[in-house]
C-alpha cells in the first residue's frame, strides 16, 4: 500500500518539474536585489534562482525539512504565485516601477506560475497528509468536544515560548524586531486569502464569513483596517511598514502560514479544511495576541503601538464563536457530518504549521541573539585547522555585492579570508566580519551578507555537527 507522499511523488516527473520551476524563478523580478530592504517596489521578490538546481521539487518535504533550502525556496516561489492574484501598489512613485508592475501581473509570468503552483503545493504541503490522520465516524457533538479540548490545551498556557525567547534574549528589541518582521509577511495583507471564500453563493454561511472579513478590513474605514493598525505597530518600533520591505528576512515557516491559507482557499475543494484552519487561528489569536501585546509593551518600554494586538484580543473572541457556531456548525448541518473529517484536518494542519513556525522562529532568535558565541566557535575551529586552503568553496566578491538571505542544509563554517563584509541574521544591525574572522552557521539558520570593502574573499566549509561543538 502506497502512502500519500509516495503516491504524490510517483506522479511528479522530476526533471520536468524542476525545469518548469526554474523557468518561473528566472523572472527578472526574482533575481538579485541591490539592498536587503526593498522599498517602493512590492514586485521585487528575490528567490535566489541559483538555489533552484540544488532542490528536487518533485520530492515532498518531510516535517524535518521545515527549515531547509527546499522549503524556503518553495515557499518564496509559492508566495509570489499566490500574491500575483492580490493587488499591491508601491508607496513611492508608480512610474518608477511601472515596468515591474506590468511584468508581475502580466500573463506570461502568471501563466508560468500557474503551471508550477500544483507542483509546489505538493512539495510543501503533502507532508501534512503524512503527519496527521483523521479517522472514524464523526458527529457534530464529537467535533465540538474535540475542538474544546484542543483549544483549551493551547490557550490555557500562561506564557508563550516565542514571547519568552524574545524577553530572555540578550537583545530583546532585536529579537522583537525579528518577530515583527515575520508577522509582516502576513499582517500587511491580512485576510487576503479569506477574501477568496466570500464569492459565489453558499447560503447564510457566506454572509457570516463576510462579516469576519469586513472586521479584518475595518468596515471600510482605512484607519481601522487591521493591516493599517499593524503598519502603526511597525512604525512605532522603528521598522519599515511597506508590504514586503523585509521580504528577504521572512523564514520559510513564516511564509507557510500565509501560503497554507491561500492553498486551502484558492482550491475550493479544500474549503472544509479552510474552515478548520480558520477556527484554529481565530480561537488562539486572542490568547497569543494578549501575550504579544504585553511583551511588546515591556520590550519597547511602552513605545510600541499595540492596537493591532489589542484589537484581536477583543474581536477574535467573537470571531472564534462565529467560526464555530455561525460558520462551521451550519456548514456541517448543510453538507452533512461526512465533511467534519476535513474540518478537523484543516484545524490540525494549521496547528502543526504554527508549531513548526514557532520552533523555527525561536531557533532563529536564539542563534541571532547568540551570534558572538558562533563567532568564537569559528575562531576555535579555525585554530584547530578545520578550514584549510582547500576546504569548502572560496568566493571572491566586490563591494556592495549582496548574498540574499538563505539557509544551508548542514552546519557551515564561514570564514573571511580577505576584506570586510557585513553578516546579517535578521533585519537588525549586521555583525561586521573582518579578514581572519568567521562564524558557524547552524543548519537551517537564516543569514546573508554584503561586501563592505572593495574586494572580499570568504570561504564556506560544510562542517556537519560544528554548531553543537
Amino acid at each position, binding site marked *: 500500500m502506497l502512502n500519500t507522499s509516495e503516491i504524490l511523488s510517483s506522479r511528479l516527473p522530476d526533471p520536468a518539474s524542476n525545469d518548469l520551476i526554474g523557468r518561473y524563478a528566472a523572472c527578472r523580478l526574482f533575481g538579485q536585489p541591490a539592498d536587503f530592504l526593498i522599498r517602493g517596489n512590492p514586485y521585487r521578490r528575490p528567490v535566489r534562482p541559483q538555489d533552484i538546481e540544488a532542490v528536487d521539487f518533485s520530492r515532498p518535504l518531510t516535517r524535518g525539512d521545515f527549515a531547509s533550502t527546499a522549503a524556503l525556496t518553495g515557499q518564496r516561489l509559492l508566495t509570489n504565485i499566490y500574491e500575483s492574484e492580490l493587488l499591491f501598489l508601491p508607496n513611492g512613485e508608480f512610474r518608477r516601477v511601472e515596468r515591474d508592475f506590468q511584468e508581475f501581473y502580466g500573463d506570461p509570468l502568471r501563466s508560468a506560475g500557474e503551471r508550477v503552483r500544483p507542483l509546489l503545493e505538493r512539495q510543501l504541503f503533502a507532508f501534512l497528509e503524512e503527519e496527521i490522520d483523521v479517522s*472514524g465516524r464523526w458527529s457534530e457533538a464529537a467535533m465540538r468536544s*474535540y475542538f474544546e479540548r484542543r483549544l483549551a490545551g493551547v490557550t490555557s498556557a500562561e506564557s508563550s515560548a516565542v514571547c519568552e525567547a524574545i524577553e530572555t534574549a540578550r537583545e530583546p528589541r532585536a529579537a522583537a524586531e525579528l518577530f515583527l518582521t515575520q508577522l509582516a509577511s502576513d499582517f500587511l495583507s491580512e485576510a487576503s486569502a479569506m477574501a477568496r471564500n466570500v464569492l459565489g453563493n453558499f447560503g447564510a454561511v457566506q454572509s457570516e464569513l463576510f462579516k469576519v472579513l469586513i472586521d479584518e478590513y475595518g468596515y471600510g474605514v482605512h484607519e481601522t483596517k487591521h493591516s493599517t493598525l499593524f503598519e502603526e505597530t511597525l512604525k512605532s518600533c522603528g521598522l519599515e511598514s511597506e508590504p514586503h520591505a523585509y521580504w528577504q528576512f521572512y523564514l520559510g515557516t513564516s511564509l507557510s502560514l500565509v501560503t497554507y491559507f491561500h492553498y486551502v482557499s484558492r482550491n475550493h475543494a479544500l474549503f472544509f479544511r479552510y474552515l478548520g484552519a480558520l477556527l484554529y487561528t481565530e480561537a488562539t489569536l486572542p490568547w497569543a495576541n494578549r501575550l504579544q501585546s504585553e511583551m511588546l509593551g515591556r520590550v519597547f518600554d511602552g513605545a510600541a503601538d499595540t492596537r493591532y494586538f489589542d484589537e484581536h484580543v477583543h474581536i477574535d473572541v467573537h470571531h472564534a464563536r462565529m467560526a464555530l457556531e455561525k460558520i462551521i456548525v451550519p456548514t456541517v448541518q448543510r453538507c452533512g457530518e461526512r465533511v467534519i473529517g476535513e474540518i478537523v484536518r484543516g484545524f490540525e494542519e494549521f496547528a502543526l504549521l504554527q508549531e513548526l513556525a514557532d520552533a523555527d522562529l525561536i531557533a532563529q532568535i536564539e542563534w541571532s541573539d547568540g551570534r558572538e558565541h558562533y563567532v568564537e566557535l569559528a575562531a576555535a575551529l579555525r585554530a584547530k585547522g578545520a578550514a584549510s586552503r582547500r576546504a569548502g568553496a572560496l568566493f571572491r566578491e566586490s563591494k556592495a555585492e549582496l548574498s540574499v538571505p538563505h539557509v544551508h542544509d548542514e552546519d557551515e563554517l564561514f570564514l573571511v579570508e580577505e576584506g570586510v563584509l557585513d553578516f546579517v541574521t535578521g533585519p537588525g544591525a549586521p555583525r561586521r566580519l573582518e579578514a581572519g574572522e568567521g562564524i558557524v552557521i547552524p543548519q537551517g539558520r537564516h543569514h546573508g551578507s554584503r561586501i563592505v570593502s572593495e574586494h572580499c574573499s570568504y570561504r564556506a566549509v560544510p562542517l556537519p555537527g560544528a554548531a553543537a561543538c
Partner: protein
Amino acid sequence: MLIVEMDSGSDTYLTVGETPYFLLKAARNRVLVCPDRCPHRGGPLHLGRRDCQTGALTCPWHEATYPLPALARLSVPAVTRGGTTTAVFDLPPDTPVYRRPRRITANDCRELE
C-alpha cells in the same frame, strides 16, 4: 463526550465503559480506533485475518470480511499526530477506561509498517 489520548504504538487495546476497542493500523501512520466486536455476531476483530494488499479484515468467527472504508465507518472519531491518538467517545466524561496491551494479530502486515 469522553476524550481519550493513547500512545499509538503501545496502547493497542482498551476497554471504555463495557466496550473493548483496539487500534487497527490502516496504513503507515494511520490508525482506526475500532470496536473489538464484529457487527455480525460480536467476534473478536483484533484476532482477525488481514488482507495486506487491500487492508480488509476478516473476523475469525464466521469470516465476515470488512473492507477499510467499512472499518472506518465503524470506528470512533480520532486524530493521530506525532504518535498520539486522540479519540472521542460518545460517553460521559467520567466513563472508566482500562488499557491492556495485547497482540493485535489484525495488524500483522509488514505492508502497514
